[in-house]
């Protein structure tokens, strides 16, 4: 850990990377996490950069690729790993799995697996903030694929009409499962441009440059907080592993090994370290230390999760309904 805001960004990415790599190995080797899992390995910078701009009371809502924003927002690691193992001690008590992480104590309000579903939800939270004058901001993370859902356009329009304090953080990794952007959206018309046409201020950012992401996010979040209305950040990034699951997918035929390698070469952690090295010559040592530290932390979490209690089938329906009035 460190008090320096720049090295903290690197630390947070390293931690997410280390945790996800450990989880991916266990997931693949032991098949004990019975929940479809979408890793963010290679695309840690959007989560870390955006969440660095947030207060604990700001709320984050995400799609299926949820681990990175959960951890970046400060979500409890044990709670997440226990959840992936389906334990009663999981952050969603084993009911939700990888795609339904939640940690109210740090403002991670929830994730959901139906594409686009959380986008209006974040706008709704922002509406509540605006109506009550709470000064909070809502942020939602989603992918390029989710922007094809009609609810994305509906929400942009709604948020613009009501000038809501919401930041739309689009992680554009150019794929929806195995479908490239080119088969899904017309060439030359970006997501940011679409948002702008709906009256939502938008910026395209190099999503593998964590400092650029943070800078854009700070501007967006503070503008939204000050009543400047919604902002969309289109964060260009890339997923290294397969869409769902722990493996690599060079052999699936939808993208080339060269393409993947070219993005691995643009690793957000390496790039951040490169940028800091002149002023922080100890950055490589720090990365090595942090990697070791959080790899160990992740192994501990998995060990602990495996020892944690399963939910009791007698409580199978607990929480299906709320209390009555």
């Amino acid at each position, binding site marked *: 850990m460190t008090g320096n805001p720049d090295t903290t960004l690197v630390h947070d990415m390293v931690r997410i990377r280390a945790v996800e790599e450990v989880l991916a190995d266990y997931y693949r080797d032991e098949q004990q996490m019975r929940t479809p899992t979408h890793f963010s390995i290679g695309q840690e910078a959007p989560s870390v950069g955006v969440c660095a701009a947030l207060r604990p009371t700001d709320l984050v809502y995400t799609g299926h690729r949820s681990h990175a924003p959960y951890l970046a927002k400060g979500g409890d690691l044990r709670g997440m790993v226990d959840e992936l193992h389906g334990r009663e001690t999981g952050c969603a008590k084993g009911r939700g799995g990888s795609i339904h992480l*939640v940690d109210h104590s740090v403002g991670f309000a929830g994730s959901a697996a139906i594409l686009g579903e959380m986008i*209006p939800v974040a706008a*709704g939270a922002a509406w509540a903030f605006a109506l009550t004058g709470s000064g909070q901001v809502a942020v939602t993370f989603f992918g390029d694929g989710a922007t094809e859902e009609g609810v994305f356009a509906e929400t942009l329009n709604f948020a613009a009409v009501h000038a809501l304090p919401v930041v739309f953080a689009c992680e554009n990794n150019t794929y929806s499962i195995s479908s490239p952007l080119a088969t899904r959206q017309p060439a030359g018309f970006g997501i940011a441009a679409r948002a702008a046409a709906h009256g939502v201020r938008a910026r395209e950012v190099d999503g593998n440059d964590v400092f650029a992401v943070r800078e854009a996010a700070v501007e967006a979040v503070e503008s939204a907080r000050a009543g400047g209305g919604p902002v969309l950040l289109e964060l260009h990034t890339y997923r290294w592993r397969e869409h769902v699951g722990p493996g690599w997918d060079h052999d699936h035929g939808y993208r080339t090994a060269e393409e993947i390698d070219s993005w691995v070469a643009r690793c957000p952690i390496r790039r951040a370290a490169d940028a800091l090295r002149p002023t922080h010559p100890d950055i490589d040592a720090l990365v090595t230390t942090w990697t070791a530290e959080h790899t160990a932390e992740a192994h501990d979490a998995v060990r602990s999760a495996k020892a944690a209690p399963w939910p009791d089938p007698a409580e199978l*329906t607990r929480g299906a*309904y*709320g209390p009555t009035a």
Partner: protein
Amino acid sequence: MRELTYAQAISEATVQCMADDPAVLVLGEGVDDHKGTFGTTREAFLRYGPGRVVDVPNSENACAGVAIGAASAGLRPLVVHTRADFMFLALDALVNLAAKWRYMYGDQGAVPVVTRGVVGRGWGQGATHSQSPHATFAHYAGLHVAAPASPADAKGMLVQALRGGTPTVLIENRNLYPRTGEVPAEAVAVPFGVGRIARPGTDVTIVAASLMVLEAERAAEQLAACGVEVEVVDVRSLRPLDDRVICESVARTGRLVVADTSWSRYGFAAEVAAVVAENVPEALRAPVRRVTPPDSPAPVSWPLEQAWHPGADALVAACLDLVGHRAAVPALADVAAGFQGPY
């Protein structure tokens, strides 16, 4: 007790809940206009203005999601659809997110959004403006679904929904809006899952909700004149469903007719029949009858529309048939007869 119309009862519940709880707000297309959703949102708009009674874009999916998000952040949104048919566009948000929220996040947090959907025939509304999607919503665990028949229940169940911890869908038949009945002045919640005997009888049980309770009562009156005593069960809510009141009645009468404004198959009529087959099959002295629309979309043309919508006459015929009574009875007046166009 003073009488209110069904529409006034809903309006009063809305206004009182908004007064009691600053977190309650109303959103929907045109909720702020001069008609105010058949008069149910006008008073709230006049009192609380556009900040709490909010006209929204034609974006049913996003608006449902926005309501869920607002609820997740502590508000109590009441979403209004002037036709429940538009709710198909909000179905994903309601059944795939609102209904599951509390459970899938491990019983932490809640999104008790309330959605009102208007249904009901009148003036050639046709295939896409005559549906009652109550069974669709009631199939998915996690929601409460109610379809009150009386002004008192319309008020009390809205109050219940706006105070409860479960996302709720309220289905309102527009032909009920002008009906009057005694309504308590205070905002008293009517619990879900407790049906009522709307009329006691000994020969046949008619189970219904919403407008069909009135149709059943009209049929019962007519049948009483022929010496057939019908018991009318108003279930009030579809989920939870009061199995007991249904089964106890059928255990008494031995005959069941289920009335519904939506299709038989996989609908309310199916569920009620199943409840009886599951619990008191031995009580049945005759086959169960489902009085519902035929298996086609709703037509526009007047004579077809009249034939398509089930009403008191069809209930009378079904009951007489069940008791083996062969009398010819005069036709009843159309319950929607007073309704005029255009909308």
